[in-house]
């Protein structure tokens, strides 16, 4: 399976720690949509000896290539490097910074948080009016996003401008924490989990040509995936993601989306894509055969690069393997380490059997056509 050490069953409590360490480091790198460079540099460092070639395109997508040993088919794996964050949009007279959210962030997740801004990672905090000073009406009403500001401690605009500029991005400044039973908290699990999985999968060589696309700007509209899939023009693609999980007490079963600990989640349908039925079936069968726990995403919600990839060119067969993350798109997203390792196992097992599936599916012609 993997080069470093024996792969022990994660439910036994023993994990290949190096993967968790890798995830820690990768989540500590900052890469708000449009400013993915620190994440990309880290990944290039890790994979340069595992791939035949790699390049960075005009948008910043990192596209790595590993030639196949026989089967003339192109498989694309995608994970996005960008995370949700903030964009500094103005600097007030009093030195406070106005901002807008890059990607979907709920206002309630922003109040009372630490951020770091720009290349220099200037620290700042998002404050709000103390409860003592709020009148009755204010206490009952939600906070308005437009009223929030970042305070870097500057006394006026001039001082602030020495450290930050309009157009800088700010990421949540939260360090990863392992806690509870098998739990792991970090910002940007969406989608550093996918990136780590993809880096790991490059350790093997497969019969088919493998294009690993670490995409940009997913959180603001699946943009990087559009350019990457146009360039690669794959036959099949599997997207590795972090997905929503809201399995708290009181949530109806069908509204949870996914449950922590139930294994990697497969998507039949979300708002961006209906997974290729054949590929979905193949992946679930693989999971069953190998005894890998898995779950189906229970809500038809959200969107991923899979949607953008599917409709590129003459069409791509796609499916998504995702790690459930509670509190996704906040600084304190939480995953279960077992789900993460099972996702890796599932991805590895899928790729191991994929060439047979590809052969069957594309048996009639070349170039993506078949009698369905």
């Amino acid at each position, binding site marked *: 399976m993997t080069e470093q050490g024996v792969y022990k069953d994660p439910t036994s409590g023993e994990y290949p720690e190096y993967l968790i360490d890798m995830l820690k480091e990768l989540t500590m790198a900052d890469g708000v949509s*449009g400013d993915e460079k620190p994440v990309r540099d880290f990944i290039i460092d890790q994979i340069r000896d595992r791939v035949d070639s790699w390049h960075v395109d*005009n948008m910043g997508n990192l596209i790595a290539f590993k030639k196949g040993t026989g089967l003339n088919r192109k498989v694309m794996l995608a994970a996005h490097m*960008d995370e949700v964050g903030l964009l500094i949009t*103005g600097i007030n007279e009093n030195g406070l910074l106005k901002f807008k959210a*890059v990607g979907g962030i709920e206002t309630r997740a922003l109040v009372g948080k630490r951020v770091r801004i720009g290349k220099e990672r200037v620290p700042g905090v998002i404050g709000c009016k103390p409860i003592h000073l709020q009148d009755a009406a204010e206490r009952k009403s939600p906070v308005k996003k437009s009223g929030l500001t970042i305070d870097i401690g500057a006394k006026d605009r001039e001082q602030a401008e020495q450290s930050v500029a*309009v157009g800088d991005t700010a990421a949540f400044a939260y360090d990863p924490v392992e806690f509870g039973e098998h739990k792991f908290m970090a910002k940007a699990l969406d989608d550093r989990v996918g990136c780590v999985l993809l880096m790991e999968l490059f350790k093997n060589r497969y019969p088919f040509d493998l294009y690993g696309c670490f995409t940009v700007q997913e959180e603001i509209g699946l943009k990087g995936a559009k350019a990457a899939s*146009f360039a690669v023009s794959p036959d099949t693609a599997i997207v590795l993601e972090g997905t929503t999980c809201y399995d708290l007490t009181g949530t109806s079963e069908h509204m949870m989306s996914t449950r922590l600990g139930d294994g990697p989640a497969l998507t039949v349908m979300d708002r961006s894509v209906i997974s290729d039925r054949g590929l979905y079936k193949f992946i679930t069968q693989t999971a069953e055969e190998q005894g890998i726990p898995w779950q189906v995403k229970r809500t038809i919600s959200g969107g991923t690069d899979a949607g953008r990839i599917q409709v590129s060119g003459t069409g791509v067969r796609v499916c998504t393997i995702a790690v459930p993350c509670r509190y996704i798109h906040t600084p304190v997203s939480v995953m279960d380490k077992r789900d993460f390792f099972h996702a890796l196992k599932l991805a590895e097992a899928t790729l191991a059997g994929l060439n047979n599936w590809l052969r069957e599916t594309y048996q009639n012609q070349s170039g993506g056509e078949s009698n369905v």
Partner: protein
Amino acid sequence: MECRELLKKLCSINAVTGREDVAAQAISDILSPYCDEVKIDAFFNVIGLKKGQGENPRNVLVTAHYDQIGLVVTGIDENGFLRFSAMGGVDPKILGAQEVTVHGRRDLHGVIGTKPPHLISPEDADKPVKLEDMRIDIGYGAEQARELVSVGDVVTFKFPAIELKNNRMAGRSMDNRSSVAALVEILKELKRIRHDDNVYVAATVQEESGLVGAFMASWHIRPDLAIAIDVCHGDMPDAPSDESFPLGKGVAIAVGPILSREHTRACIGLAKRERIPYQIDAEEKDTGTEAAVYSSALEGIPTLLLSIPAKYMHTTVEMVSLDDIGATARLAARYIAFRDELLQEGDSQ
């Protein structure tokens, strides 16, 4: 032609989004004196080429959409009044008591009226008027109206551009004819300075109805750099300060996730060096302009977005400053010509 007169002329052209076919030639005639060649494509994008003097010229694409919002006739009622729907983002609030031109079998003068205050009850006065309840009065009875007008005919607002203080002008279609005026000024500037690269100057279609023209332009031209020119919100009393820009303070350079970091940095550097007044427009989403198309087109095109502040956007009294048009054009042209110097200075992506 001076910018003032050029802008007046551009604003008088009727090119409702999706019906640019009637205006393409006029736009082409305006661009052609400054280009080596001009083409009108199957969708009525007008694409001019000014060749570069370099040995290995790259391709730069500068675009400004020339379509405007308007209305479309959806029915003629039994009294000859016309029902209508919007073409592009039209706010029903601006329609009351407006003069329009209905482009039927011939151009017809029309009026969208409102109920006189004497007949409006206090409750009604507070309610917004719905577009589907409004009618265009062309002064004809049903039979004649049906002869002259058919479902699908487009309607434009009648509001010739007027000059105001401070070098400002107001009228309909400043979104985006002010940018088209900037295109002409860019071409004029490029005639004065030496530039290595081929510059494709494109007046594009259907931005207001889905950024359509941009798809065609990027596919066929495949530039190394795309510069989109559009309008952004000018400063108004109740607009948020980080989403609106004072008139007369220069071109708004957009920064944000979909714009090329490298190029925006270099462009700001150039503006400083050349003392071209500029402002920074932080865009956290995809900007809602053609820049959104270019940045992820094909394998991705490095994109810049330069905007001219315009107050009262999508109304009949859109207002811009001629100074800002000048600043936009000067910055764009000089960036095209001199960017390599500045790109070397800055750190790369």
